């Protein structure tokens, strides 16, 4: 695979893993290693909150870059503050911008997201913008200066796969920044489809961390992303209605 380039950062893996949902750090470590990922998301919480210990140390030991998210934020102002705190704590300019509209759907709030993106770009951040699968909004986020746009396949944690492949294709067709399919991946074929549709990378967590065997699923996702990337580059045959013999006629 060619390198994935996002902003001024370069990755040889096209699989980005979220660290949420793993039963413990040992399970997470085995899954991260099996996935081959070079970039993983973390959340920012009060330092005395549960689960605050160990993940940073683990990611540094594995030499995996941190992509702090703004999950849990409801407004642009909250997301900007969270990103600034993450930059201060983790010494990175990367941020996965997430502004959720409500707890039930965890869908991105498009208006707050766009406003936060504009402010974060102006503040020097490399913004990965989590967004609806809306081609118009994706373009607006790119115009705002986001380094990557990350349309959802389906709502976070649902494992429903890519509900609107055509919209993902529309986003890919018009975007000049990398398109990272984020959220909704359930199994390996979903990740392959994302890459076949032309996405530059896939971001997932639940599908691996909550799988019965996270390490094995991580290996599957790694292979799936590579397969989809190769297939996209190879150029699929056109779909036909009638049969077309592959053996020569008599």
């Amino acid at each position, binding site marked *: 695979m060619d390198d994935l380039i996002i902003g001024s950062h370069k990755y040889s893996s096209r699989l980005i893993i*979220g*660290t949420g949902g793993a039963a413990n750090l040992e399970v997470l470590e085995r899954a991260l290693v099996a996935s081959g990922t070079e970039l993983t998301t973390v959340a920012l919480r*009060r330092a005395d909150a549960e689960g605050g210990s160990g993940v940073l140390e683990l990611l540094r030991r594995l030499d995996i870059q941190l992509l702090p998210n703004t999950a849990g934020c409801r407004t642009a102002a909250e997301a900007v503050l969270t990103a600034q705190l993450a930059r201060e704590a983790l010494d990175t300019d990367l941020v996965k911008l997430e502004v959720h509209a409500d707890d039930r759907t965890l869908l991105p709030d498009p208006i707050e997201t766009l406003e936060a993106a504009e402010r974060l770009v102006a503040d020097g951040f490399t913004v990965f913008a989590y967004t609806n699968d809306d081609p118009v909004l994706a373009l607006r986020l790119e115009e705002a200066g986001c380094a990557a746009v990350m349309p959802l396949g389906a709502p976070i944690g649902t494992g429903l796969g890519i509900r609107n492949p055509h919209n993902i294709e529309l986003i890919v067709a018009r975007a000049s920044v990398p398109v990272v399919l984020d959220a909704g991946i359930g199994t390996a074929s979903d990740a392959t489809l994302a890459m076949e549709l032309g996405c530059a990378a896939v971001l997932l967590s639940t599908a691996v961390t909550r799988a019965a065997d996270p390490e094995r699923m991580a290996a599957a996702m790694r292979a799936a992303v590579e397969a989809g990337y190769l297939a996209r580059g190879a150029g699929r045959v056109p779909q036909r209605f009638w049969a077309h013999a592959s053996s020569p006629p008599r």
Partner: protein
Amino acid sequence: MEIKFNGQWREFPDDSTVIEVLDAVGASRQGVAVAVNGEVVRRGDWAAAVVPKGANFDVLTAVQGG
């Protein structure tokens, strides 16, 4: 003076700086960020920044998250 440290009121000496508050509670200085009254205090300013009485003082760090 009282400061609301990570959501809980606690007593600190008057005119404590950010570093003095962190040290008083035994919080790590690495891999954390500090917000006072909802604004980031840059690491380079911790030694000089005096925390106002009654401030909301939050220390944040990375946890597992999607």
